[in-house]
């Protein structure tokens, strides 16, 4: 992959910053999301909560369904492929998707290797629980990172844990002596130059969003105050009582994430939030897929 294309792909993620990316399953939902102020939509057949409920093998969505959503909206459209399933990724590239999410929400197709994302022209976003995972994905060609959270639960605890972990590891590297960076690269199992980048800049070399379990405007603002550059909302919107109103409120909470007064106002009368499942109640931890 030419250097130029990778730069352009990282730059598309920069344009999404301060925005909310919403999971949608139909063109109608995509239009609601766009009208509510989503900066991009994630097209998938079933939202994570339903994937979790249905069980079984979960795969890339029907290209026809994805194309229906591409035609319905003017904002960027993302879609998920299974971890390691480079042919699903090739198909998504063939239909000119704007971003591919190599996602732990689907059943992994490969339990050892991730996709070599440097072989693609379209950009990839990947999940990461900690700095090592994030830098390994970036080394494989990911041009955007998100926390893994625990999709489909409406429980934000894991997204918080991942974001805090990332922050503390970045802070640690920032304060290290230069001669300690070699060992750090070895421990994180990542290339030395990426560790040097983090040391010098105090941040990842790509945009970092929060994902997993975000269900309320306050959840979204929490992730932003913890340092996320934007937010993915999956089941939280279309599994709630009033998707339109909730989506609107989350978008504004992300813009004004430190304004408690405004977020309190936005949080009024949103109807029922998704019921949610506690982390302890679930048997399948999707965040453990693909390290």
């Amino acid at each position, binding site marked *: 992959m030419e250097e130029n294309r990778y730069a352009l*792909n990282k730059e598309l993620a920069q344009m999404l910053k301060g925005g909310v990316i919403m999971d949608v399953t139909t063109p109608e939902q995509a239009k609601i999301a*766009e*009208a509510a102020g989503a900066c991009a939509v994630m097209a998938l057949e079933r939202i994570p909560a339903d994937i979790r409920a249905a069980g079984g093998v979960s795969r890339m969505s029907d290209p026809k369904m994805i194309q229906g959503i591409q035609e319905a909206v003017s904002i960027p459209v993302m879609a998920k492929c299974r971890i390691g399933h480079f042919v699903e990724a090739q198909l998504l590239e063939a239909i000119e998707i*704007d971003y591919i999410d190599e996602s732990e929400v689907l059943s992994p197709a490969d339990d050892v290797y991730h996709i070599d994302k440097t072989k693609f*022209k379209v950009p990839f976003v990947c999940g990461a629980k900690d700095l090592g995972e994030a830098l390994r994905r970036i080394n494989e060609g990911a041009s955007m990172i998100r926390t893994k959270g625990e999709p489909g639960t409406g429980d934000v605890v894991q997204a918080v844990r991942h974001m805090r972990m990332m922050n503390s590891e970045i802070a640690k590297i920032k304060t290290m002596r230069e001669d300690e960076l070699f060992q750090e690269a070895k421990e994180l199992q990542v290339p030395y130059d990426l560790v040097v980048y983090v040391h010098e800049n105090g941040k990842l070399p790509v945009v970092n969003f929060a994902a997993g379990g975000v269900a309320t405007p306050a959840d979204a603002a929490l992730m932003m105050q913890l340092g996320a550059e934007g937010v993915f909302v999956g089941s939280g919107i279309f599994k709630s009582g009033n998707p339109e109103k909730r989506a609107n409120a989350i978008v504004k909470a992300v*813009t004004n994430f430190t*304004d408690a007064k405004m977020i309190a106002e936005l949080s009024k009368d949103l109807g029922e939030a998704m019921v949610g499942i506690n982390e302890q109640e679930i048997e399948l931890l999707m965040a453990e897929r693909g390290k």
Partner: protein
Amino acid sequence: MRVAVLAVQGAFLEHEKMLDRLGVDYVELRKKEDLKQSYNGIILPGGESTVQGKLIRELGFYDTLKDQIQSGMPVLATCAGLILLAQKVENDDRSHFATLPVTVKRNAYGRQLGSFYKEDTFEGIGKIPMTFIRAPYITDIKEGVTILARDKEFITAVSYGNQLAMSFHPELDEDTRIHQQFVEMVEK
């Protein structure tokens, strides 16, 4: 001198870094109260124009910013910012500030695979880096609009009075000359 950067969504930090490099003071516009601060220029950054267009209305910026732009406060608009300024959007029934008498086409180069980088001539400055991300271009201009850059037959940068607008992202590259030119407009 102080510049206000619209910070509701998108790549506003990148513009702020440019202003930092030029030693220019700025404020962020995130909510209505922010309009009370004093400033002499406005930057409309890249991002998603649908999101920004919605938020400038719902967060209460629309009337004040439109008045300020119409009364001649200098404005620098990149990508989505150009769409916010355009009088007409070819493939969208919404227009926003509509202070710039041009017609733009959104996502004119297609999806992300159509994004590109090149170096080309910008009138009055010379060759500059130009990064186009799911970019629009200008399909028609009215009298009084000056063309500053083209990509083949398409218009990619214009000025009209104190409005400086382009379909690419000078804030993403290292070259500060466009921001410098804007700052000079503000200083006048």
